[in-house]
């Protein structure tokens, strides 16, 4: 199991050092600094073995988190834990920075004591942790309160405490999708997938039992078979094939496996209900058509057309096209029909920004790139043109069909809950080779 956990600043100075196992000595702290943080080369692996000691590290801005072990630990678990650790810290004090870590080092030690015991991760749900790790000193708790805390930390529903009350029962569902594309210069889709998340903000009283439904092809086909057969064609078009999905630990997985129904008691506040991935019938919101022409050795002509491919009534926002330029670029002249374009020498790219663009429209940019003559034989690698945007629909076609809430003990019904649903499609890695 995890033998120790260190946090370093960008210089390699130790900010936090917590050793859980006897086999990890103080020199392990230095070994990592010398061999990884101060190493000249780029990091070649997130797992490093130095003198039979294994180091797992992740970086958040310029802070290094490293877990150390001398045993054959579950590597996936260690990384999941490190991410979780970052989430917990962020939930407690915001951004992970040297300043914040130094300001909260006592808190961090307290957290590390609680969420990692002898190197075994324990309950790390912030909802539960915040009930008893408060940094306010110990409050005079009643015996009931204490046992409530412990049963929550260890219990089946470790992510929610009892006795939550709201005057207004309200919930927000965000379907956040990032659409990823790799396209050849000829417009052939090399790979495309959507990775989506359903994020829920719940402000519900008591211990509400929820059931979530979406236009999952498997569910809809099943219902189509059982019920009337006339609308299978219609529903078939409406439903989407989900390649795979994963759920927050509150979802009863065995029930999903057997009935494909998503039922759960949600944590209070914001959390990620599920993640999913689709690859079929993706609506690609934009198409990028690049045209790069080398004019002699010192000039490059670039023309890029973008076409929006969705309902004209919808508006895409925050559109940004990034056209890479060679390292020996000396000057760039850009003309674009819409938005603003700028050559950013430090980033070796022309960045073209458009605030808004409706569906079924087209826009174009052309640029002349002057090159310095070089005797570098190696050709320019021509990185792909990448794009960023935000659209108000789900490119995968996912629709929320229902989210039902039952609270058997308190007297509010599904109708009393105010529900909000929002769809946001964003670009993930959306690249077109040129």
């Amino acid at each position, binding site marked *: 199991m995890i033998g120790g956990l260190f946090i370093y600043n960008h210089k390699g100075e130790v900010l936090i050092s917590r050793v859980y196992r006897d086999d990890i000595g103080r020199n392990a702290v230095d070994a990592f600094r010398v061999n990884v943080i101060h190493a000249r080369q780029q990091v070649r692996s*997130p797992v490093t073995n130095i003198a039979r000691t294994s180091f797992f590290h992740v970086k958040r801005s310029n802070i290094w988190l490293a877990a150390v072990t001398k*045993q054959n630990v579950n590597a996936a678990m260690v990384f999941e834990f490190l991410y979780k650790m970052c989430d917990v810290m962020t939930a407690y004090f915001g951004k992970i920075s040297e300043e914040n870590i130094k300001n909260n080092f006592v808190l961090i030690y307290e957290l590390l*004591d609680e969420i990692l*015991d002898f190197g075994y991760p324990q309950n790390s749900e912030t909802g539960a942790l915040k009930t008893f790790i408060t940094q306010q000193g110990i409050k005079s708790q009643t015996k009931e309160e204490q046992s409530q805390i412990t049963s929550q930390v260890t219990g089946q529903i470790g992510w929610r405490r009892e006795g939550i009350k709201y005057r207004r029962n309200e919930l927000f569902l965000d379907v956040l999708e990032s659409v990823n594309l790799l396209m050849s210069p000829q417009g052939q889709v090399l790979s495309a997938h959507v990775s989506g998340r359903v994020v829920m903000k719940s402000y519900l009283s008591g211990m509400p039992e929820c059931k979530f439904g979406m236009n999952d092809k498997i569910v809809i086909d099943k219902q189509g078979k059982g019920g009337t057969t006339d609308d299978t064609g219609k529903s078939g078009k409406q439903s989407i094939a989900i390649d795979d999905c994963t759920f927050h630990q509150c979802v009863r997985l065995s029930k*999903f496996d057997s009935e494909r129904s998503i039922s759960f008691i949600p944590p209070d506040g914001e959390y990620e209900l599920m993640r999913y991935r689709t690859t079929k019938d993706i609506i690609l919101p934009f198409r990028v058509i690049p045209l790069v022409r080398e004019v002699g050795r010192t000039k490059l002509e670039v023309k890029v057309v973008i076409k929006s491919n969705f309902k004209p009534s919808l508006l895409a926002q925050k559109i940004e096209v990034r056209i890479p330029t060679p390292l020996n670029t000396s000057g760039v002249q850009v003309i674009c029909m819409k938005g603003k374009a700028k050559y950013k020498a430090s980033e070796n790219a022309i960045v073209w920004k458009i605030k808004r663009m409706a569906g079924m429209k087209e826009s174009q940019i052309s640029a002349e790139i002057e090159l310095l003559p070089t005797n570098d034989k190696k050709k320019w690698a021509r990185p792909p043109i990448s794009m960023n945007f935000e659209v108000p629909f789900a490119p995968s076609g996912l629709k929320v069909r229902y989210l039902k809430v039952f609270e058997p003990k308190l007297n509010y019904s599904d109708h009393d809950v105010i529900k909000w649903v929002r769809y946001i499609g964003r670009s993930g890695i959306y690249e077109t080779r040129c």
Partner: protein
Amino acid sequence: MTDSKYFTTTKKGEIFELKAELNSDKKEKKKEAVKKVIASMTVGKDVSALFPDVVNCMQTDNLELKKLVYLYLMNYAKSQPDMAIMAVNTFVKDCEDPNPLIRALAVRTMGCIRVDKITEYLCEPLRKCLKDEDPYVRKTAAVCVAKLHDINAQLVEDQGFLDTLKDLISDSNPMVVANAVAALSEIAESHPNSNLLDLNPQTINKLLTALNECTEWGQIFILDCLANYTPRDDRESQSICERVTPRLSHANSAVVLSAVKVLMKFMEMLPKDLDYYGTLLKKLAPPLVTLLSAEPELQYVALRNINLIVQKRPEILKHEMKVFFVKYNDPIYVKLEKLDIMIRLASQANIAQVLAELKEYATEVDVDFVRKAVRAIGRCAIKVEQSAERCVSTLLDLIQTKVNYVVQEAIVVIKDIFRKYPNKYESVIATLCENLDSLDEPEARAAMIWIVGEYAERIDNADELLESFLEGFHDESTQVQLQLLTAIVKLFLKKPTETQELVQQVLSLATQDSDNPDLRDRGYIYWRLLSTDPVAAKEVVLAEKPLISEETDLIEPTLLDELICHIGTLASVYHKPPSAFVEGSRGVQHKRLPARAGSGESAESPEVGQSGTSEAPPAVIPSQGDLLGDLLNLDLAPATTTVPSVQPSMQMGAMDLLGGGLDSLLGGDIGGSPSMGAALGAPAAMPAALSNAPAVGGGLGDLFDLGGGVGMPTGFYVAPKTLFLPAMKAKGLEISGTFARRGGIIQMDLSLTNKAMSVMTDFAIQFNRNSFGLAPAGPLQVLTPLTPNQTIDVSLPLGTTGPVMKMEPLNNLQVAVKNNIDVFYFSCQYPLSLLFVEDGKMERQVFLATWKDIPNDNEAQFQIKDVHLNSDAASNKLQGSNIFTIAKRTVDAQDMLYQSIKLTNGIWVLAEMRVQTGNPNYTLSIKCRAPEVSQFVYQCYELVLKN
């Protein structure tokens, strides 16, 4: 609240100030001081001097302060064991505290203090806590047992904590169960045979129930523990799989991977024809693909594991090639791993896409990545035959870029392509040769040298190219040296005339000037091979090479199976068994996949995918310099057709010992009966050619033969040595000699005598062109200088592949011998029987037909006088010189012997010998298509029969 100020206090006298503050009456000040102490501790300052003062702060009802003090204690208790005792009372008291959080804190901290005296006091509170009413305390106590076990295993056993821990597996609280499982698993690891984790269907059932309810971490502990269980039959295996599959949808990647591990393992037990087996395979792919959308570090772990899974069960991900395409912004470690998996998944169906991608990658920035991409193109060519041509042209395009490392990498893979598809793409050699100068890495140089050697006959200036490498021979790395040696020997065998000097040069560089035993050994083997039997040498060195396998870097099947049992763990990331990186007893036990139940089929054949039932494991492309590579370069193909034989030829005993092994390798499956050589301890294999000689085979026999100088009765008549070159004519060097044929090898036995006053060195010999193409097959082995009045006997092996020119007389041989003094010439005549080969026995039918076929003009008659042998004895004697009697007819007290002879150049000589009883004169009729040899054949009869 700005605690960061505690990090900045660096002034002197700090410890003294802190001491004062710690003893302050004000709670706030105390707390501040402890914080400062912890901050100093974090940055590595020694604050152990404050131990008593900090411990004094322990008695407080402020939980935050208490936790800080505990943290301090855990760090320093070991260095101050005596004072740590002071804390015991507080711990014991805290374990009785009404607040469960404080009870748990106390028991948790106590377990971390590795001081014997404290552990003694720990036992009682721990026992209570294990049975505490509060689950939070129980789950903490469960882990504490593992801590205590780590400090004092005996104590834990004596106190019966293990049984209590086992009971906790049935606890009502899922987290307590999970922690108890984790603790037990860890303890069990250090007691491999203890059967501590007594897993049976009942406990498994409990674990599976807890699995649905506990935290994500708890699920990992339970799944990892489940993976160690071996179900009793396939039905149990299936039911566990069914209950584990829902975990594949968990958001936590570690839960998913651990579930994959359980499924991969238990799947082994399911019959393949079961519907559920197929369903399960299908269910595994999507979650594995989903892992690739996790954070890069987890992607890396996932990819390393997918690499194993793809090797074990290629069918799971065979349709998922696209998800492994590299993204521009992937970290380099993700890119490299993806590339690996792409090659493994490449097939005819997806090769076009893969190649297009690889070509794209070959223009990227990162050198390692580009290299690997280039290599991958070559692998594709070898794996998917249909794509080979496109791969080669892609590689050529890449070579044209002239980017140094791209060129070198391309040459290395083209070598493998040549191996796989011989005689198909050699047109590119010219392009490769253009880049000779830019190669500076050993692997690329070695590959290029291999190509030049292998295709020496097509490269006009192959000798120049190789010679250019020879200049810096000793500066090259071993792999290049070895390759150069082999290549030059190949070249020599292909173009013997022009490259003799070159081969001698490299042989002497390798054997005499090198410190590397591998190089020396290989040099000697070649040398010996060349000097004994160039034909055999050809068969060996230029033999057909075994096919190279399609897959590279396959993990050895037993290791692969072990690693499958470690999916998700570090072992699967390193691709090494835990024993390779874990110290001590932990994890040393090897895990194995369960055997399939039911049908007699044992564990599934570890072979990957389609490779089928072929018994021979595919030869893996050897990484340069390993042993396998050496053997491949020697190409010890078992199907050598001619018979290499054991013959003494060198003066060095050591070489003969070496040769013994080699002979046995070569003659292994041709040789006749195991001979006395076996008794001598040498791995004997008696070549058939020697079967006419009494069997004294084996390497040691050679030695005896040399030492005694007696010579085996080989049957071949060897004339006594005659004087070839008188000392007067050669500035004191006297040479006498004779010729012999021993077991198919022609030898010129020479005696060199130094009759001059000075030492002679640097001997060399050369023949003029002659009728039958006789030429030295090796250098003249005079290794020690010839001192005055010393005589040395040398056997020079001769080949018959030299240049041919008709001589007068036909058996005349003009020889040049060189030494440090001068070059001398002499001529001598050899008996034609030297050229009678061992397989000269003609079929009777063929004999009859041939006899009739040869015109009568070609028949010559001779009289052999004064032979006092009967026909059988004569026939036996003649057979010793490869004159074979095919048939015997007796007519009127006259024996008619029909005999056949075959010369090295393929000429057949037929003879009829009439022997009349009582008459010492034989009549010999010789018929041959080349009548000029008849005269000399007759001479041989005379010689053989009369001696």
